[in-house]
């Protein structure tokens, strides 16, 4: 391939960002329907039309989906087998911001991500920037209205509760609440999964602690105060907790998403128990979206239909995540009862989610105050 000087410069700029040039830009052919603009399977003349269009594309690019996260390993395998569509999985351990960056930087290339699975605040920002293609899956009505964009730019997929996990072989007096964790017997034993100014799991632990200590979705300050106290009491270990720190014995108690504890810690540490704290209930869901510049627009839409089918929803459930349509699955008796029974008991009543304004305010406050509150 012959490159003109300008092309070398722009190609080199892309390489600076860790990318390589790829020659082929897939064409979005299709005489009757433009799959990039389809907002439901009906545009393809129903699901069979969508499957046909997707098979013709033959490939789907997904990004930041770790195999041991919410059962994505099996979901990817099953989808590929079922439809004969090859899935390219990029940067499995990346963050939501990495997804947005990939959409922006790979625009127009065949390697660009087709579908996204990200934190809701990132979905909202991406929608404002016009990066997402609106689409309604067949079971759209089963997704609660607070868990989707009214213009169908994004919709929630799966989530879970902030939970306390502990190694029952080391912890003889099981903690059941945030209040319990302040007991002197847990000195140097309580950790969270990362930096709350960076990792949403850790940030959510602070939110849950706020709810347990007189705070609200509009007031996260008591959560910061709680971790300050936990730190002063000497119970808080500021290590980024994970299976390895649990196995080494450094973090026998971890506050983290219930489904990630199930897939990443309980699978490695026999005797790992997970409880949802009695005094602070905080749940969050991730959001799905289709990239407006997806190189495989039909496959992207088929992937969404698959995820929101009974099969897809139950696959997430088998990964100990709570699919967004769980309530309808239970009602219709299509739920995988074994996987459902294995979830830690959910608190009674409906769970409330913060609004975008509340979330942004809470994030700003934690960013400002976390280091001062927990610094030694």
């Amino acid at each position: 391939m012959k490159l003109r000087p300008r092309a070398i410069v722009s190609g080199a700029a892309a390489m600076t960002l860790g990318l390589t040039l790829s020659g082929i830009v897939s064409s979005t052919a299709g005489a009757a329907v433009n799959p990039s603009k389809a907002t439901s399977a009906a545009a393809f003349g129903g699901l069979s039309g969508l499957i046909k269009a997707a098979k013709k594309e033959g490939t789907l690019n997904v990004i930041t989906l770790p195999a041991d996260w919410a059962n994505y390993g099996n979901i990817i395998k099953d989808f590929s087998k079922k439809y004969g569509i090859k899935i390219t999985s990029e940067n499995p351990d990346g963050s939501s911001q990495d997804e947005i960056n990939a959409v922006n930087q790979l625009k127009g290339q065949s390697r660009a991500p087709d579908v996204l699975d990200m934190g809701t605040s990132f979905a909202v920002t991406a929608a404002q920037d016009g990066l997402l293609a609106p689409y309604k899956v067949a079971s759209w009505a089963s997704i609660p209205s607070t868990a989707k964009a009214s213009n169908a730019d994004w919709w929630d997929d799966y989530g879970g509760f902030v939970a306390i996990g502990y190694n029952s072989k080391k912890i003889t007096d099981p903690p059941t609440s945030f209040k319990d964790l302040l007991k002197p017997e847990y000195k140097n034993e309580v950790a969270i999964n990362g930096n709350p100014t960076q990792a949403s799991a850790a940030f959510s632990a602070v939110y849950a602690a706020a709810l347990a200590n007189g705070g609200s979705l509009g007031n996260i300050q008591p959560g910061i105060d709680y971790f300050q106290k936990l730190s002063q009491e000497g119970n808080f270990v500021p290590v980024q907790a994970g299976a390895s720190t649990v196995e080494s014995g450094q973090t026998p108690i971890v506050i983290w998403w219930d489904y990630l504890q199930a897939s990443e810690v309980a699978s490695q540490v026999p005797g790992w128990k997970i409880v949802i704290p009695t005094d602070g209930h905080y749940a969050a869901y991730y959001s799905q979206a289709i990239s407006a510049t997806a190189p495989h627009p039909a496959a992207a839409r088929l992937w969404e239909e698959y995820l929101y089918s009974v099969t897809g929803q139950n696959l997430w459930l088998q990964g100990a995540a709570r699919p967004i349509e769980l309530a309808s699955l239970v009602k219709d008796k299509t739920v995988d009862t074994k996987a459902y029974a294995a979830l830690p008991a959910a608190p009674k009543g409906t769970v409330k989610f913060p609004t975008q304004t509340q979330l942004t305010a809470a994030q700003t406050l934690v960013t400002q105050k976390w280091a001062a509150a927990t610094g030694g």
Partner: protein
Amino acid sequence: MTTTTVSPEQPRTWKQRRSSIIAALGLLPFGVYTILFLGVPALAVVVGAFQSPTGGWTWSNISIASHGVYAHGFVTTIELALVTSIVPGLAGVVIAYAVLTMKGNALRRIVSTASGVFANFGGVPLAFLFIATLGTTGIVTSWLNTLGIDPYQHGFTLFSFIGVSLVYAYFQIPLMILVITPALEGLRPSWREAAEGMGARSWEYWRFVGGPVLFPSFLGGVLLLFGSALSAYATAEALTSGSIALTSIQIGSFLNGNVLAGQQNVGKALGFGLIVVIAVVMVGYSILQRRSSKWLH
């Protein structure tokens, strides 16, 4: 630079000219590499620091980055970089000198190979190595406990400024040994013999001969350590989860996180701040360097 020498009266032959062109071509990959991987990203950081998310020019990123927790972050980062460059720097010189003056080549080779390995060890694996040894349930901590010493009862914690400094020393000391050894080897025994012949005592030799000769190299080594401490990221992040305000971790929250959306340019402003810090240190370094190496010429 070319290896051929050209005498002034003779015109350069084609052969000589060709070899200097080839030499310049040899530099080209490095030049391209530097522009692509240092120049372009640095420019993007500096430009981004002054842009709003929509692309207009603004001071607000710089203003956010220079106040409150971010200003505090710069102070802590510079403190950490100073502590973990000067102390391991001195330790590295002493160790390298001790090894050089010992008899036998085997130890020297072992130390330099080991330094090469340790100096490049970092990130989350390094953090985990220390958790497994000096964490509250670490092996070394348990040994100390059986001896009746519990470091955690005496104000020590691995997950603090002092802990992070200790972990940084793990790669900083070997790095210093690597860079200072050639300078130490350059100290000629005859200088010492001459000094002693004129009645100098050991400290006088170091004060008036060895010290001044070594000082420029020592300064260069400390500068390298300062830079590596300033930019270290993953180890501190894994050990402290952001409970120490460090600029590199704060940049990570903006550029790479799952929590803060749409504020990457504040992260770039923080990156710009680090560039300024390094620039100031470099200017100070070159002034000191010039002054301290003047008499050598």
